[in-house]
Structures are given as C-alpha cells and as structure tokens.
C-alpha cells in the first residue's frame, strides 16, 4: 500500500515511529496530487511550500525528541470557507477571489497546534450553497468514483480530495448536509458534530444557526481523532458550548449496554432510491445480528424540514452576505460608479453567482416587513416542532439510522437547472442541522454501477461519542470504507461543457 492510501492515524503512527518523515509524506502526496488533481479538481489552492515548512518543523521536533501533537505530520485539506492566515480564502466566490484573511479560524489554530500540515483549500459550492459543487465560481470537482458525476456539495472538494487520497483528512462545514452528503457520495466518513461543539470562529458564515464545522475522513477512528482536536469551548464564539469534551478515542470499539436504534419511517418513504434503501436495510440487519434492537419511529414534522430550512438558512444568509460590498475588501467593479448604491449593485452583481443571488433574494423576501411573521417566525416554530420530534425519539432510542441521501451521486448537469430537485438531495441531512444534533455518514454499500452509498447515524446533543462507537461497530464488521476508486483518465465525453 502506498503511503498516501493510509489513514490519517496510520500515517501519524508511521511518522512518530520514524518509519517515514513528514517531509517525505508531503513530497509523495504532492506527486500524487500532481497526477490526479487534473482529473478530480478537488482544490482551489495548494500550498506545497507551507506544507513542507510545517513538515520540516514536525520532523525537527521528532529529531529533538520533543513531544508532538495528536495530528503530527498529517496532511489536511480545508474547505475554502475556513479562514487561514496568509492563504486565500475564497468561498469559491468571485467576490472573495483575492481575499487573504489576517487571522486563522479556531479549528485551523487547533490543528496547527496539534502539528497537522495544511496542504490546501478545497472546492465548494459558492459560500457553501449547493448540493453538487456545480455552484463553485471557479471549477467543478468530480466524483472520484465516476468523474461524470458530481462529488456532492457543498463540500465536494474536501470529500473528493480524501476519497482520491489527495488528503488524509479534511475539515468542512455542514449547514444542511454539506459534510455528510458529499461524504456519502464519495464513500468516506463525514461527521457533523452537535451545534456548538466546535467553534465557528473563522468559518465564513452561511447560516449562523445551522452552520457547524465537521470532518471528512477515511474511517471512523480518524473522525474521532479530528473531532478530539477541534472540539471544545472558544471564547470567540458565543454559541460554542462549555460542555466538556470526552475522550472519543480510547473506548471507540465498545458500544456499552443494549443498543437501541431508531428507524424513522419518514426517512424510508417516497423518493428513496431502492438500491440505497436496501443497502441501509442490510446494514440495519448487521446491527441486529450484533445485538442491537431496531425500533420503528415516526418523526412527523420532518416532512417540513426542507421548507423550514430554506426559510431560515436563506434569511440568515441574506444578512451574513450583506458585508460583501467592496468597501473594505473583496471584489470591486472595474466599471465607474456614480454613487454608493451603484457601487454596491455592481460589486454584488458581478461578485455573486446565481444560486447565491437566488438565496439572498429569497432571504430578504422572507424577512421583509409584513412577511416576517408568515415566514421566518413560522419557520422558527416548525423548527421547534421538529426538535420536539427528535427529543421524543431519543427517549426511546440511543441513535437514529437512515440513508444519508435519497440517491447516490447524480450526473453533472442533471439537477442544476432544477433547484427544487437539488434541494431535495439534502432531505435526510437537514433535520440534524435544524435540531442541532450530531450526525455521521459512513459508507454502507455500493450501487450496481459502483457508486458509494452512505448511511447516516444521528445522536442526541453532545452524544458524538455514542454515534462514533455505533459507526465503528459497523465499520469493524464491513470493508466498504477500505474500497478505493480506480482513478483512470475518463474517455473524452461530449455534451459536458465545463
């Protein structure tokens, strides 16, 4: 096995044992990236120089017998909406095309402290708005399992990079499924922690009450490892929780007590692809064989989740994206400006893509005088009802299992002209964001055409430890997570114009 194919924890062990140097890893990884990136296009920006510098620092520490961090020498990719000091952070938007943050996000500081090596910034739908990666202002990332297919979104870049072994792990953001959905489509492990578990400071806001930083990894242990590093209270984020961070790693193979798994009928209904449905049902059988009890559930208000989400998320986005006005930073129109309104209009008309504009307009509409009560306030009430559904459910079960997405990865261009169809891709992932609970997507099978299928495990607030264990149990019984895509050049296709 080539070293870039190892998991993050495996490579870290090798580095610590001095079987390989961090510098050698980085060199080898960038060789592989040079080969495969033209095919996948997972990254918006690579920083080999910075990566080598950090690798040398880690090697030097080891040379001197100094203590190294939990992620010593592990090359990590960051979704390009996470601020990095000195490295462009574009959100895949023209409006921030040349924006270089003067500060590091909380999570970036944390992984740097633990000696991770940042290799680059990965592609996304502009401002994390999208489910296919097709809304990136710069280029479309392709699914490593089938390069005609989308990698999912908004975090298609991080997921594709990890799947293609072009990063050992990645940090993304999950507002309605942007970590879990692409992880399901690319066949890796995507974990969205509880809202407030990981500081959002330095994550460029899309929808503040829903955004949560999450991990994309090759296996469940790596997810636990990365979560261990980035979790905890941050004085710069008022919504970050003061709840203590448990040890996710040492006991990950022991699911204690009788495991009760909730199976909500609303997540197995109309619109669910049959291959995806049966893969998840098979997975549930594996749990049953391992002593778990399956409990039929109903989450009656989940049918309103997508509608509720698109009111709350767009309302918050319309306000969060108001700051991109060209006054202090970001895109500034080359055309002459007659007045300030003219300047705003040009900056924003030129700087934002169509999906972002659609959501800003929608958000401004639902917050307008006379509509606020009918839309935003009503949506907030429905959000509470959905929360109540989950609270009731978790009185009966330890976790809830469902498909991550109703379908496997779809083809590039398939849904881009139909936003409503696109939005439905997140139907199973959205409730966790509305409720604030943690969720993890793990690979649980493949379609006949060889596309990965993801299964979602949802837990109670701050019960990441439990869902990681439940995920690990399945992983220990199966080998879906070990499968690698065959990264060959595709034959030139007609009709796909990118």
């Amino acid at each position, binding site marked *: 096995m080539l070293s870039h194919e190892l998991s993050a924890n495996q490579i870290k062990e090798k580095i610590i044992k001095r079987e390989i140097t961090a510098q050698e890893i980085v060199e080898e990884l960038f060789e592989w990236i040079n080969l495969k990136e033209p095919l996948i296009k997972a990254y918006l920006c690579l920083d080999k120089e910075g990566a080598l510098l950090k690798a040398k620092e880690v090697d030097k520490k080891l040379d001197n017998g100094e203590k190294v961090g939990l992620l010593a020498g592990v090359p990590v990719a960051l979704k390009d*909406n*996470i*601020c990095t000091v000195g490295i462009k*952070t574009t*959100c895949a938007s023209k409006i*921030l095309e040349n*924006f270089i*943050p*003067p*500060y590091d*996000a909380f999570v970036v500081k944390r992984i740097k402290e633990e000696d991770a090596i940042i290799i680059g910034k990965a592609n996304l739908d502009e401002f994390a708005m999208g489910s296919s990666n097709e809304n990136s202002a710069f280029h479309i990332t392709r699914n490593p399992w089938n390069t005609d297919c989308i990698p999912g979104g908004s975090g298609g870049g991080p997921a594709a990079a990890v799947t293609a072994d072009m990063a050992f792990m990645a940090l993304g953001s999950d507002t309605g499924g942007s970590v879990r959905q692409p992880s399901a489509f690319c066949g890796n492990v995507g974990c969205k922690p509880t809202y407030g578990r990981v500081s*959002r*400071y*330095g*994550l*460029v*806001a899309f*929808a*503040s*009450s829903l955004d949560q930083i999450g991990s994309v990894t090759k296996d469940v242990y790596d997810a636990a490892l990365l979560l261990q590093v980035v979790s905890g209270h941050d*004085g*710069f*984020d*008022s*919504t970050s929780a003061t709840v203590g961070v448990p040890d996710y790693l040492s006991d990950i193979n022991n699911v204690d007590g009788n495991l009760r798994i909730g199976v909500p009928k609303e997540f197995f209904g109309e619109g669910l692809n049959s291959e995806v449905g049966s893969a998840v049902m098979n997975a549930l059988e594996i749990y049953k064989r391992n002593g778990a009890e399956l409990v039929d559930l109903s989450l009656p208000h989940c049918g309103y989740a997508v509608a509720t989400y698109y009111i709350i998320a767009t*309302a*918050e986005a*319309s*306000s969060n994206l*108001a*700051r991109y*006005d060209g*006054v*202090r*930073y970001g895109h500034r129109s080359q055309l002459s400006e007659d007045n*300030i*309104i003219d300047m*705003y209009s040009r900056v924003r008309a030129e700087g934002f893509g169509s999906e972002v504009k659609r959501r800003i307009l929608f958000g*401004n509409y639902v*917050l*307008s*005088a006379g509509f*606020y009560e009918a839309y*935003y306030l009503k949506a907030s009430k429905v959000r509470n009802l959905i929360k109540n559904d989950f609270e009731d459910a978790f009185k009966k079960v330890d976790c809830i299992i469902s498909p991550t997405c109703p379908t496997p990865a779809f083809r590039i261009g398939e849904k881009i002209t139909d936003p409503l169809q696109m939005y439905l891709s997140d139907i199973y992932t959205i409730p966790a964001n509305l409720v604030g609970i943690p969720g993890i997507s793990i690979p649980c099978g493949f379609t006949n055409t060889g596309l990965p299928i993801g299964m979602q495990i949802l837990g109670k607030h701050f019960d990441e430890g439990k869902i990681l264990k439940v995920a690990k149990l399945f992983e220990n019984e199966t080998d879906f997570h070990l499968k690698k895509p065959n990264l060959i050049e595709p034959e030139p296709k007609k009709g796909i114009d990118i």
Partner: protein
Amino acid sequence: MKYEVVMGLETHAELDTESKLFCGCSTKFGSEPNTQTCPVCLGLPGVLPVMNKKAFEHSLKAALTLNCEISKFTNFDRKSYYYPDLPKNYQTSQNYFNIGNNGYVDIVVKGKEKRIDIHNVHLEEEAGKLIHPETSGANYSLVDFNRAGVPLLEIVTQPDMRNVEEVESYMQALRNILLYIGVSDCKMQEGSLRFEVSISLREKGSNVLGNRVEIKNLNSMKAVLKVLAYEMSRQSSLLDKGENVLMETRLWDDVDSVSRRMRSKEEAHDYRYFPEPDLVPIWIDQEWINEIRATIPELPVDKHQRFVNEYSISDYDAGILTEDKHLADYFEECVGLSQDSPKELSNWIINDVLRELNERKTNVQDFIVSPKMLVELVKIKPTIGSSIAKDVFGEMINTGRTAPSIVKEKNLTQIDDVSELNDIVTKVIEDNPKAAEDYGQGKKSALTFLIGQTMKITRGKANPKILTKILMERLSAGSK
C-alpha cells in the same frame, strides 16, 4: 399658537467601557483612524461577536434607573441597512426583546413636576465614521472604523413632551442621570450623547396626532432646541396655509439653520429585523437585578431634596450643588469634615470654587484645593478675616499649599489684642492730627480714613471690629 406640539426624543449615549461591544478593541476617542480595529469590528468574513458584560450591565443599570420593567429574557436582533460606515451592513441591536420597557423620568418645569414616559431602553453597536475629503470634486470618501462597535445605549421616550422647556429639562435630567450612574461620559463634543427628535403639530384639543417628522443626528441640546423651534414654525405655517406636513425624516443643517428632507415615508428603510443568531439570549434573574440595583447611587432629584433638609441650605444652592455629582460629592466631603458650617461651605463652593473651575476650565475632581483644604480655610477664616481669606484662597490655588501654612508663613493672623491695637491707634492719631480734628468736627469720613491708615500699618491684619470700636472711643474722648 393655535397648535399643540407633540414631541418625543430618542437619545443615543455611548457607554463608558474600556473595550467595544463585541471585541476587545479600545473605545478611546480621538486616535488615528482605523488604529482601534480588529477582524471582528471590521466585519471580516468568518468573525463572530462576543458580548461585553460591562456594557450589558451598564445598560441594565440605566434601564433600572429609568424605572423600566426589566425583561427576564433579552435577545439581540440584526437591523439591516447598507451604509459604508456599517461594516456588516447590519447593526446588532435590539428590537423584539429590549432590556427595559415602560420606564419614566420625572422632570420639573417652572416649578411643576411632569413625568416623561420611556418607551424602551436598548443596547446596540455604534457605526464607524465617514470622512469626506475637503478638496472639491474628490471622487472618494474614507471610512474610520475606530468608533464601529462602541456600545451604544438608546433611550426612547413616548411622545410626551408639549413644549421646548420640557424637552430641555428632559435632556438635562437624562444627562444628569447617565452621568450620576456612571454609564456614559455624555461628552457631546465627542458625540457620546446624540439626539433624534420627532415632532408633530395638531389643533389644540384634537385627539388625533398630526403627521410626524423625525430629525436625526443632533449633536447638542442647543441643536435640538433650534431644530424644534424651526420645525414648529415650518409646520405651523404649512398648516396655516392648509397644506399637509409630510411624514418624513429630515436632517438639521447647522450652518444654514434649516432642516432638509432626508427621506420620505415611502423611502423609509425596511430593516428586516430578525434575531441575531451569533449571540446567545441573555436571561436576567432577580439576583442580577439586585446586584446592579445596589450599584445605583442616590439620584440628583433625591440628593437635592436631602441637601435642603439635612444641611439647611437653600433650594437654589442645593440645585447647583447637585447638578454635577462630583460637585455634590465635594460638598459632602467638606461637610463630613466640618459639620458646623454647611451653609458657609456651600457659599464658598458656589461662589469661589465654581468660579475658579469655570475660569480654569477644569473639573472638580482635578481641582487643586481638596475638600480638606477648603475646610481648613473656612476654619481659619475667623482669625484672618474674610478679605484675607479670599487672598489665601487665591494663594492656595496658585501654590497648592494649605491655608494654615500660608497664614503662618505670611504672619496673616488678625490682631485682636486691645492694648496692641491701642498703641497703634495712638500712633495713627498722632501722625494724623488733622483727621482726628475733622472727626471731632463731625466729619464722619475721617474715621474711614483713619481705619485705612491703621490697616496700612498692620498690613490689613487689624481686627476691623475691634479697631473701629477703639478708634471711635478714642476720637470721641479726644474731642471732649
């Protein structure tokens, strides 16, 4: 005038805190542009606000002092509008759950008490400041974000005021209260205290409110009074002509002394308020309220009454002494050191101390003559006389030395000794036989002349009462 004027006031007071509302940047006034900024108050991508506890507690204190009902649950809201001095293009403010509601301030106008109802008190962040280049034809403007994010308290009244005297009295009362409780320095020249007024006119006796005009950004009480006078005449002449007053927002032009339309009602902003998701709601329990309430000092109105009752000083004097909390504190410190002369201490402070403070443009906290020094002067006064006491006071201000040391060094103690004075008088009469003679012949002004001569010899130290008595006795005796 046949119209009744209906006025309300919104007051913005910058809160006196070391750091800004949502970040650690300094709030110091007058620094180089953009030197007190950070990613948070510049609204860079990815930043989040963290509430300044001190600012929140200052707001709570103000709301309590203004007799508001305190919300158990408060939240912040985003108020959206685009302007280049607003880094996020929304202002984090309060709309749905203000800190305080339904309060009041009692004011006195022409001896009559009136209650002005407070609609609400809420906390928000300050915007930055646009700097327009002075060169004509410049096609750019600059922004200074030093002020962006400074905590701002907004106090909104009901439309309760009916004449400018009430408005003036309310502004002064509010300013005094904010200064007294120490939540704002209320420096109008630095923009720490600003007003917005709303004014409408209606026929006397009418129950229906007229169309309201709002005037924004008034930086002084004087400007408020000017704009109100202007609007009263503008609106009444419109109504006299049978025309409508347009509901609109106007700006005051201090140079031309006119108000101009800023935007009509139709152009009014839709602020699209919604709850600020980046801040957590704040629950205010009784314990916290009690804790804050305990820090509220005695208010000007109460102190005024107490000074009259406790120290038997006039209502007028008590009013002057309590206008400035520090002056009142100065007075009380003096009285604490010398209980027997509150009236005299009050006179010294109102006549002499205040005059010096005004002349030197300083405040009482920095005044060189401490309460202890003033009390010493008042105590030593009977031995040196009023006139020398004034000179000693002047000397104290110039040198910072105490009254006893000045009196001792300059040997200024009055000569009360009768035999000593007798000897001096003998000499004075001998030297001025003509004057003594004049007095005997009924020329009373000769006495004043002889007193003057004696004072000259004693360098003013002769006890005037005893001296006059001796001189009169001697001259009467001599003339017999």
